[in-house]
C-alpha cells in the first residue's frame, strides 16, 4: 500500500470534518423522514403548488438570465473596455450581500411607486406579493451563475477560430451561433442549471418581496414557525430532493459531456 506522509493524513482529517459536517445533516434529514408522510405530502395541493411554483418561477428567472446573461458573458469574454472591472463586480455583488438585503433593495424599486414598479404597473405588472416579484428576486440572486459559467466557456474558444469562420463567409452573429455557442454549450448549460437550482432555493429575498404566492422555501419556513419541526421536514425533504437531482445532473454533465478538443 502507498505510504502517506503526516501532512496528508493531518489535512485529510481536518478536511473530513467539513465533509461530514455537510453530509451527515443532509443524510439525517432524508433518513428521519417518514416515507408515508412524504407520500401524503406529494398529494397535498398546498405542498405541490408551492414546489411547482418554485420550479416554474426559477425556470422563468433562468430563461431571463440566459437571454441577457449570455450576450453579456460573450462581451466580457471577448472585449476589453473601460469600466469592465466595474461591470464584473456588479454582476457578482448579489453573491455577497445578504438575501434579506436583496429583498429590501428590490422592494424599494419594484413597489408600485418604485422606479421600476411604477412604469411596469402601467403594462399590468405588479411585483410585491406576485409571481413577477418572485422571479425578480430569483433572477437577482442567481443570474451571475449563468454569466460566469458562460463566460468561462466562451473564453475557452479561440477567437482566431471565429475569425477564420468569418473569412469563410460567416457573419459575426452567425459565427457565434454555429461555432462559439456549440463549443461552449456545456458551460452555458451547467451555468443555467446552477442558476435554476440556486433560484429554487432562494428564500430571503422572496420572503420580503413576495411572501405570497407561497414558494417551497417560504412554505417550509411557515410550517416551521406555525407547527414546528416535524411538519416542515417532509416539504424540506421534497425540496432538497429536487435540488439534489438538479445538482446531480450538473455533476454528470461536467464529467461526462465530452468536449471535442479533448480525448
Amino acid at each position, binding site marked *: 500500500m502507498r505510504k502517506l506522509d503526516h501532512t496528508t493524513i493531518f489535512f485529510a482529517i481536518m478536511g473530513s470534518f467539513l465533509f461530514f459536517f455537510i453530509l451527515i445533516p443532509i443524510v439525517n434529514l432524508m433518513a428521519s423522514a417518514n416515507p408515508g408522510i412524504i407520500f401524503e405530502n406529494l398529494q397535498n395541493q398546498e405542498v405541490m403548488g408551492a414546489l411547482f411554483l418554485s420550479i416554474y418561477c426559477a425556470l422563468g428567472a433562468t430563461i431571463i438570465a440566459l437571454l441577457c446573461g449570455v450576450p453579456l458573458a460573450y462581451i466580457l469574454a471577448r472585449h476589453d473596455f473601460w469600466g469592465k472591472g466595474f461591470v464584473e463586480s456588479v454582476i457578482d455583488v448579489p453573491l455577497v450581500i445578504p438575501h434579506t438585503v436583496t429583498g429590501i433593495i428590490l422592494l424599494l424599486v419594484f413597489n408600485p411607486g418604485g422606479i421600476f414598479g411604477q412604469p411596469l404597473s402601467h403594462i399590468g405588472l405588479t411585483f410585491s406579493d406576485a409571481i413577477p416579484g418572485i422571479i425578480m428576486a430569483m433572477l437577482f440572486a442567481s443570474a451571475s451563475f449563468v454569466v460566469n459559467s458562460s463566460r468561462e466557456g466562451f473564453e475557452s474558444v479561440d477567437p482566431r*477560430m471565429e*475569425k477564420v469562420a468569418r*473569412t*469563410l463567409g*460567416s457573419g*459575426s452573429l452567425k459565427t457565434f451561433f454555429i461555432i462559439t455557442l456549440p463549443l461552449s454549450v456545456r458551460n452555458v448549460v451547467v451555468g443555467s442549471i446552477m442558476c435554476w437550482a440556486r433560484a429554487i432555493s432562494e428564500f430571503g429575498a422572496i420572503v420580503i418581496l413576495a411572501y405570497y404566492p407561497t414558494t417551497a422555501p417560504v412554505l417550509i419556513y411557515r410550517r416551521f414557525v406555525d407547527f414546528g419541526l416535524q411538519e416542515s421536514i417532509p416539504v424540506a425533504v421534497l425540496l432538497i430532493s429536487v435540488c439534489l437531482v438538479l445538482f446531480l445532473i450538473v455533476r454528470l454533465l461536467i464529467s461526462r459531456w465530452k468536449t*471535442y478538443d479533448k480525448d
Partner: protein
Amino acid sequence: MIKIENLSRNWKEFQIDQVNLQIKTGEYFVILGPSGSGKTLLLELIAGMWPTDSGEIYVDNKNITDTPLEKRGVGFVYQNYMLFPHKTVFENISFGLNMKKVDKKEVKIRVNEMMKLLNIDHLAHRLPRTLSGGEQQRTALARALIINPKVLLMDEPLSALDRKTRNDLIRQMKELHQKFDITMVHVTHNFDEALALADRIAIMKDGRISQVGNSTEIFRHPADKFVADFVGVENIFEGFAKKDGERLTIIDTGKVFIYSTEPKKGPVHMTVRPEDIILSSKKVETSARNVFKGKITEIIDNGALIKLTVDIGEPIMVFLTRQSFIEMELNIGKDVWTYFKATAVHTF
C-alpha cells in the same frame, strides 16, 4: 494585386508602423521575420481581423480597408490550423461553401475533389482531434482554398510540423499555388521555407518592413545588419571604407584590408558569402583582388558540406565539398590561402 499604403495600428504593447507593400497578382509572397516582429498582426490586419488606425489596403484596386472580413474574399490559414473541433474534416472543408449557400450536390462534388487533391479523402468523417499535424494543415488549406479566395494568407503554416511533413507540404503548396493561380502571402521565421517557396520576400522587424526583394537580392545584398544576421549571412565584418582608385573601395576592418567594388565611404558593414571564397593549400595566380593567408581554426562537418573557419586576421568562413576537403588533406592549424573577388564583397 494587394497594395498596402502607410498601414499603421497601435496595440498598447506593440505597433505596426507605416507599412507599405505591393504584392503582385499570382505571386507567392513571403513575409519573413523573427518572432515578435509583427508579421502575424500584419497578416491579420490584411485579413480585416483588426480595425486599422491609418493607412489603406487595396485588393485588385478595390479599397477594402473598412470591408468586414467575411466580405473580403481573403482566405486565412493559421499555424495551429484552427479547425472547427465539432465538425468533421468534410464539414470543415464544406463550411465556406455552405455559407455561400451552394447546392448540396455541388458541395459534395467540390469537397471530394479538394480532399483528393490534398490526399485527405480517406479522412472525410474524422474529427480534427484525431488527425496528425500534417493532416490538420491539409484540411485547413482545403477549407480556405475551396471558396476560391483571391488571396490566401498563411500564418506560419508549416512551423508546427516535422521536417518530412514540412517538405511534403512545401512541394504541395507550390503545386497548389500553380494550380489555383492565387496570390499567396506566407508568414514565417524560417529562411529555408522562404527560399523554397517565395517569388519575393519582405523582411519584417519591430512592426516595420526592412527590405523587400527576391531571395537572391536579400541573400546577396541584405539591406542592413539585421537582415544579414537574420537570413544567416556569414562573414559579416565592420570596417571603415574609403575610395581606392577609380572603381575600388578599400575597407579597413582594423586587422585586414578588403577590396570591394561597391562605392562606399565611412563606417560600413561588409560581407562575403562563404561559397564565393576559393581555398587552396598553395599560393596560386588569380585575378581575385582579395588574397589572404590564414590558419584553419575550426572544422564543422555538415555532411555533404564542410564549413571551415580560417583566421586571416578576421575569422572567415569557407564552404568546401567533402570531396575537396578530403583531397586537400586539411586539418586544424594548417596554413591555407583564401581568394575572393572584389565584386563578391557586399557592403551595407
